[in-house]
């Protein structure tokens, strides 16, 4: 309060006042320094700290013929030393790519010569020097695809099939939508909002459950909030920028601009979806069958419909290249998502991606709602809008069953 008062007294601010603003920081450094030297004796007043959890974060288990590789990270403040390594509850000799004692957030890869059985469940364990065993169960041991040209192409093909193809097909509804009654168009816009809400909630739940599996040091609901806030606010910024450029003064985005936002929202979601498919497959948790791909395709065709609805508004047109751009924006992120998931399998990244997807989807829902309020011929409480919104959620749920 005082500093704002001071700033008010010296409009524009002087160098002296700015320096004064550093005083709390300097004092904080001093206080931290003092505590660091005397801190332990202070803490002793309240009792002894419990020993550290000494659990490893098993980041990735990969299988090569005759070898298992276990990537472990130390998630805690205190150093963590690898004592023994077990496979299926049997101690095995191992070698390390990095140090045996890991400092905070440092990783190393454990190599174990092991004759594993294709398709069998298997568990690996890493025991700390203090005797705490961290185990990870793998549903089925399968050879881990390396980052070869073949597998890069494979993941790209999956991303293409799941992302680009259905969205392109969905956009083919555009001519029909153009001929639709404006009230029905409002219903389809509401449907878009419904399906985006569904995607947002789904992504948020995925982000929270992934976050819960992260080690205490890096996890937390705050990480999810960070992802949601960054993507929501980025899209808000982008939409206000686009709105200023748009010609009509309604303040609500419409036409291609709104379709672009919808495409971005769906694109961020598809990045997460690609990541989920890629990492589940790489970790042997997912059987990538024809049925699953087909399920995702049917699920995602509605996303194309969502993009088409804003463009179908009367008085707006979109060139073929612009439509193609929308498809790429919404569908193509599935491909890098699958690569990242398949080759990196980083859960922190996964949390951020899904959180970002949730934030983006919710922001676009707000934009679409604003569009309906200001430009649609029917009110928000009309049967068209409510029916469309609920249908959007229901369609996503039902088609989602195919991919489950």
């Amino acid at each position: 309060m005082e500093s704002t008062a001071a700033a008010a007294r010296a409009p524009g601010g002087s160098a002296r006042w700015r320096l004064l603003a550093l005083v709390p920081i300097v004092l904080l450094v001093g206080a931290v320094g003092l505590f660091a030297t005397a801190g332990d004796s202070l803490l002793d007043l309240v009792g002894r700290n419990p020993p550290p959890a000494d659990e490893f974060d098993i980041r990735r288990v990969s299988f090569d013929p005759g070898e298992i590789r276990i990537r472990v990270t130390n998630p805690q403040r205190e150093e963590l030393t690898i004592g023994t390594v077990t496979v299926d509850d049997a101690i095995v000799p191992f070698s390390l790519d990095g140090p045996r004692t890991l400092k905070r957030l440092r990783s190393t890869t454990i190599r174990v010569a092991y004759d594993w059985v294709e398709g069998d469940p298997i568990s690996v364990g890493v025991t700390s020097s203090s005797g705490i065993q961290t185990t990870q169960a793998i549903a089925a041991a399968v050879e881990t695809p390396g980052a070869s040209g073949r597998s890069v192409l494979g993941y790209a093909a999956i991303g293409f099939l799941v992302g680009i193809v259905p969205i392109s097909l969905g956009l083919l509804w555009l001519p029909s939508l153009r001929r639709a009654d404006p009230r029905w168009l409002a219903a389809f816009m509401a449907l878009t909002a419904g399906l985006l809400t569904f995607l947002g909630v789904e992504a948020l739940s995925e982000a929270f459950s992934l976050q819960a599996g992260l080690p205490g040091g890096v996890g937390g609901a705050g990480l999810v909030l960070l992802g949601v806030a960054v993507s929501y606010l980025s899209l808000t910024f982008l939409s206000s920028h686009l709105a200023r450029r748009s010609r009509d003064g309604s303040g609500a985005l419409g036409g291609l601009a709104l379709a672009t936002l919808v495409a971005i929202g769906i694109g961020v979601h598809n990045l997460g979806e690609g990541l989920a498919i890629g990492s589940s497959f790489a970790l042997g948790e997912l059987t990538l069958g024809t049925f699953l791909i087909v399920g995702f395709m049917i699920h995602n065709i509605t996303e194309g419909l969502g993009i088409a609805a804003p463009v179908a508004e009367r008085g707006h047109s979109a060139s073929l290249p612009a439509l193609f751009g929308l498809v790429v924006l919404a569908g193509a992120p599935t491909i890098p998502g699958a690569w990242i998931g398949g080759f990196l399998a980083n859960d922190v990244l996964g949390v951020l991606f899904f959180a970002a997807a949730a934030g983006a989807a919710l922001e676009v829902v707000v934009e679409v709602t604003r569009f309906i309020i200001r430009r649609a011929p029917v009110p928000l409480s009309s049967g068209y809008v409510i029916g469309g919104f609920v249908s959007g959620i229901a369609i996503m749920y039902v088609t989602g069953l195919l991919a489950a």
Partner: protein
Amino acid sequence: MTKFSRRDVLLGAAPFAIAPLCKLALPGDAQLASARAPMTHRGHEHAVLGHAAMIGADVPAPGGPHELDRLLVPPPVLPHRPGRLREYDVVAVDRELEVASGVTFAAWTYNGTVPGPVIRATEDDRLRVKFTNGGSHPHTIHFHGIHPSNMDGVFEIVAPGQSFTYDFQARPYGLHLYHCHTTPLKKHIHKGLYGAFIVDPPKPRKPAQELVMVMNGYDTDGDGENNFYSVNGLAFYYAKYPIRVRRSETVRIYLANLTEFDLINSFHLHGEFFRYYPTGSTDQFEYTDTVMLCQGQRGIIEIDFHNAGQFMFHAHQSEFTELGWMGFFDVVD
């Protein structure tokens, strides 16, 4: 949550003052004991799978050569002389032990080792064991065998810093054991307070290469299941340092099971049969290559090796084998 309870131990307890307190006669010459590791490691350049990877220098086992000699080789047998006084000093100490390669366990020990020292007497000796509690919790020593109820180590709880002298006649002959009997019992046993107690018969057993093997386990993360198994306290120790024995002479093993949490443990010998005397208190034996023991069960094994070479011995619970309870005899002519 239980994982935090595992280290409620004084890290700095004086484990080093023990050796002089221990009046145990050391075997004058540990020539049987063998812990000289025959360098059986075959210098492969590529990864070796299976048991071939688990013998010799590359085995992930703690401890150096000869480290377990005092637990493996019992004190020498003395002739039958009723009323002779046999004295032992036993001190309970909290101590961090490396029980498996690179893994420490906050153990409660008798005389600094898990299992504790081998206590040996001849039947009708008067056994006097002075127990001092140098640990951080109350403890006792409960001996198996025949003795008065006030020497049973159940009612006379010895507080930290206190002492108690157990004084009784050693009988009957056979292999017995001793362990702490303070509650919580499971905790006091699995922390490491146990050992072998040999009572020799009035008529001496025939000469043999004598070994003691106490089977045990360690729950290092406090989840009520053992993470490691061993004989004489160190996982895979006898795989790293095979026990060298002579083919020409009987090998006698005093085998006791003190494994906590698991219902049974077992001993299986490869390539050979042996005579198994349950509890070692009668002449009755079974001729077999595998015996099963519940906690507190023990017996005497006598092996006359037909062949020289390396013979594996291990628990015939594969899980225990692969978590540390296995080793090799190196039988030489």
